[in-house]
């Protein structure tokens, strides 16, 4: 059984009053043109937190118009990178001043742990903005080496109006992973947050205005993917779209881009990331890493280590210890500091995960631990581990996006590599070994965008990540992420009598 915290009733944290529920367009909070709203739900109890303006195509059109104007005529791309950076530094400072409130908003809207939001997620987004603020005046083109008497150079220009469509699993981190580099590059933008978690994005829009980001540069249109999201990806006046979410929706975004104005697309999609644990690993710390890899953020993370491969020499010990450890995992109210795992984001997600668990059982996998909902209300699920799973089972092939681990045994490194790569995804991978040669070999062999050796989830502002294969393309984080918000323009002119070429 799983330990359940019941911190909810004695919860000492004051739930903040929700201040921003309207669309943010051209520096103002406005109702949607249709006047429609939708409910955003507290996943701890299924209750309505607030009604939020429901943007659709007409609102996106309006937001694009002002973003276009802000880009084509406005000061944002015309000020120096340093000046943009200064405003972004102010933005980061304002977030630092509201950490508690923002962490609470993400906790009630997304079911994220309040304590870690306050200690990690929200301070990290401020740091991320500072990172890109410092990058804004360091975007260099190149002087080129021409094969004839020409002088040529590249300009890296802001790409223009950007559409960002972001998911609900890390509402704050995803917002800034997209927005911060785009702002640094000098773009203007429309952000569509997930309909499950619209609240912190609107709060950030408010802070952006306070920080001095000019009106029209950053617009937030809350709403659904099939309406507002589709309007963004098919818009003729948006120059680039950046999407994080499921592979299925990523495909739609790319199709819409192809059918409209061929806008470049950056996709950060699903994953089914392997964690490969070799015989020489310390089993206790490997168990901890594996559980963290699948249970962090209740498994709602695209890089979750959802396929755990353990070498045969330590497999039995690993299984025993993993089961024991999973049973001590504390699932409960995200405001309870003892909680290690909050509720899934919504009922749809909750039902989907439970149906995968049922499917796994039907396919013949052994349920080592968990497998059921827990807590009397809300969308909580026990940490779940399947053993005796086969590569062709759905629980191994599909991204479940929940606290469900498939635990498998392997013999040789060749086998581990082959099975780890036997997926349509390629987002991340973990390796646990003390052997340098193994670590080097496996890290080059796994076809994934980030490899963590003896660690997992080691994200960093300076460290790019993104997908191989159907996990998407383009990179978020690091200086690489600036690339997708910049056009490269080559400028060429003849030169005469140059003393060197």
């Amino acid at each position: 059984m799983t330990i359940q915290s019941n911190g909810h009733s004695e919860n000492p944290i004051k739930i903040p009053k929700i201040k921003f529920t309207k669309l943010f367009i051209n520096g103002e909070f406005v109702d949607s043109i249709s006047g429609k709203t939708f409910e955003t739900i507290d996943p701890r109890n299924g209750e309505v937190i607030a009604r939020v303006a429901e943007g659709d195509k007409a609102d996106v059109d309006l937001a694009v118009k002002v973003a276009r104007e802000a880009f084509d005529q406005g000061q944002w791309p015309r000020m120096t990178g340093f000046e943009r950076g200064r405003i972004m530094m102010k933005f980061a400072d304002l977030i630092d001043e509201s950490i508690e409130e923002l962490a609470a908003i993400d906790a009630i809207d997304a079911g994220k742990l309040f304590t870690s939001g306050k200690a990690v997620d929200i301070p990290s987004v401020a740091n991320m903005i500072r990172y890109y603020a410092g990058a804004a005046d360091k975007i260099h083109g190149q002087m080129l080496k021409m094969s004839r008497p020409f002088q040529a150079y590249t300009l890296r220009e802001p790409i223009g109006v950007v559409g960002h469509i972001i998911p609900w699993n890390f509402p704050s981190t995803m917002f800034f992973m997209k927005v911060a580099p785009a702002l640094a590059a000098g773009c203007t933008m429309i952000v569509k947050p997930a309909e499950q978690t619209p609240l912190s994005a609107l709060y950030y829009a408010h802070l952006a205005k306070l920080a001095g980001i000019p009106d029209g540069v950053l617009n937030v249109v809350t709403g659904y993917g099939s309406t507002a999201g589709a309007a963004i990806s098919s818009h003729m006046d948006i120059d680039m779209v950046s999407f994080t979410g499921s592979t299925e929706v990523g495909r739609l975004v790319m199709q819409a881009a192809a059918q409209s104005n061929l806008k470049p697309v950056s996709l950060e999609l699903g994953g089914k990331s392997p964690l490969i644990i070799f015989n020489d690993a310390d089993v206790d710390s490997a168990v901890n890493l594996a559980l963290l890899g699948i249970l962090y953020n209740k498994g709602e993370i695209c890089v979750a280590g959802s396929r755990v491969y353990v070498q045969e020499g330590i497999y039995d010990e690993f299984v025993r210890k993993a089961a024991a450890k999973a049973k001590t995992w504390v699932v409960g109210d995200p405001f309870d500091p003892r909680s290690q795992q909050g509720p899934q984001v919504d009922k749809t997600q909750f039902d989907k995960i439970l149906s995968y668990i049922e499917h796994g059982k039907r396919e013949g996998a052994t349920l080592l631990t968990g497998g059921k909902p827990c807590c009397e209300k809300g969308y909580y699920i026990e940490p779940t581990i399947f053993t005796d799973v086969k590569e062709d089972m759905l629980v191994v092939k599909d991204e479940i996006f929940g606290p469900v681990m498939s635990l498998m045994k392997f013999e040789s490194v060749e086998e581990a590599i082959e099975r780890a790569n036997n997926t349509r995804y390629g987002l991340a991978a973990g390796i646990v070994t003390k052997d340098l040669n193994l670590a080097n070999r496996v890290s080059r062999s796994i076809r994934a965008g980030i490899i963590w050796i003896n660690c997992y989830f080691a994200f960093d502002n300076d460290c790019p990540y993104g997908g191989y294969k159907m996990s998407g393309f383009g990179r978020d984080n690091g200086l690489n992420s600036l690339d997708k918000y910049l056009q490269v323009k080559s400028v060429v002119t003849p030169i005469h009598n140059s003393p060197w070429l």
Partner: protein
Amino acid sequence: MATRRISSLLSRPFAASSLRSLGRNSSWSRGIYRFSTATATEEVITPPVQVEHTQLLINGQFVDAASGRTFPTLDPRTGEVIAHVAEGEDEDINRAVSAARKAFDEGPWPKMTAYERSRIIYRFADLLEKHNDEIAAIETWDNGKPYEQSAKVEIPMLTRLFRYYAGWADKIHGLTVPADGPYHVQTLHEPIGVAGQIIPWNFPLLMYAWKVGPALACGNAVVLKTAEQTPLSALYVSKLFHEAGLPPGVLNVISGFGPTAGAALASHMDVEKVAFTGSTDTGKIVLELAARSNLKKVTLELGGKSPFIVCEDADIDKAVELAHFALFFNQGQCCCAGSRTFVHENVYDEFIEKAKARAMKRVVGDPFKKGVEQGPQIDAEQLEKVLKYIRAGIECGATLETGGERFGTKGYFIQPTVFSNVEDGMPIATDEIFGPVQSILKFKDLDDVIRRANKSRYGLAAGVFTKNIETANTLMRALRVGTVWINCFDVFDAAIPFGGYKMSGQGREKGIYSLSNYLQVKAVVSPLKNPAWL
């Protein structure tokens, strides 16, 4: 939004229009003299700041020199003593190096994350911004440069430079490197260790930023020796740096003289890097001391005799104004001063008339007075040196168009001086004068001017004035100098690298290039077994 580009402030509104118009306005010009009409400076304005720090800064503490000795730092407006400053020598350098060594080998600075280092540097920049006016007052008092230039351009630029380097700290990237066989190769960009830095008196704090900013962003520890003429401002701001959270020992500041403190630093066996800005003669000594001691890496930013080339098609009025600015800015005490003004023969006469008229309008006076464009030279030695060159110019047969003498009887002021009919071999065309002396030369065509412009032992910078893209492209590649300014001059953004060809030095400061002065590159190689690709 509040940033001021040095280019826009200096070359246009600040130098060209605002000050000039202020100078013409009688209500502003009480006590300000155009040099040609003035006889002396009036009453000396009391600087609005107290001198608080005159000791050496070692290991986070202000301390007296080991010898107990001090030296006076003088107000160049009057020659009077501002303060007596601790005089660092051998033993003080040893102490500072040992503090820096400890801070680097054992201290938190290189071990903290680059992001944490960047936060401390950002906080320092915030403090600089807060104390902008006091810092500017100290700078002007000790150096003699116009207060408006300090307060509105240089100190904001100082702040901006530290913000720039703060942003670099967490973006210093090594490479993974292709190998010819089954090897994994990576480069680690590591801080070098203890860096010795020796800075000049002409831009005390901007030189401080050019040196200290990249060294600390890369994680080094520093021993800085300031110029004996201008020790005060570095002590003031370094105190603020410690308030911002800089750990003790990371930045040590030694006031003192070149032959003692400077030489001790350049020849120290525990200093792994030395960066020097100053004269070519001293640069040679620094390089030699490094060679004789531990072969420490050297960056040198030395003298110049930079050509400013005005082509036939140039907008003459703008060219006159910018050529004037290029030479006279900072009392002519700029290593990159446009000190050889080459003018095409077809526009030469017009240019001379206008350059002379502009120089005659230059407002010389107490640098604390609003509207003053030119303060005193740094000290009596410089004053004498500049006057000696002026005499040499006259003796060689160049035409003295205006100026040529000391201005007033007190302090180290010199009249803005313009020579025409200057020939290539004259000392005023070959030597770095480092004063308000413009030498104007005539040229025939591009080939002529390229050959003559490059016929210098220096190669720091050049200005090119033309509307023609072909001319601009030809000159920018043909001139053997580290910076070419086309239709502008002295644009000194944080990101723009600066440094010399030939005897103007080695290495580049500012920009991404400056980081390499303070980083070791370590290649790490290990075999790969059965890699999936190579």
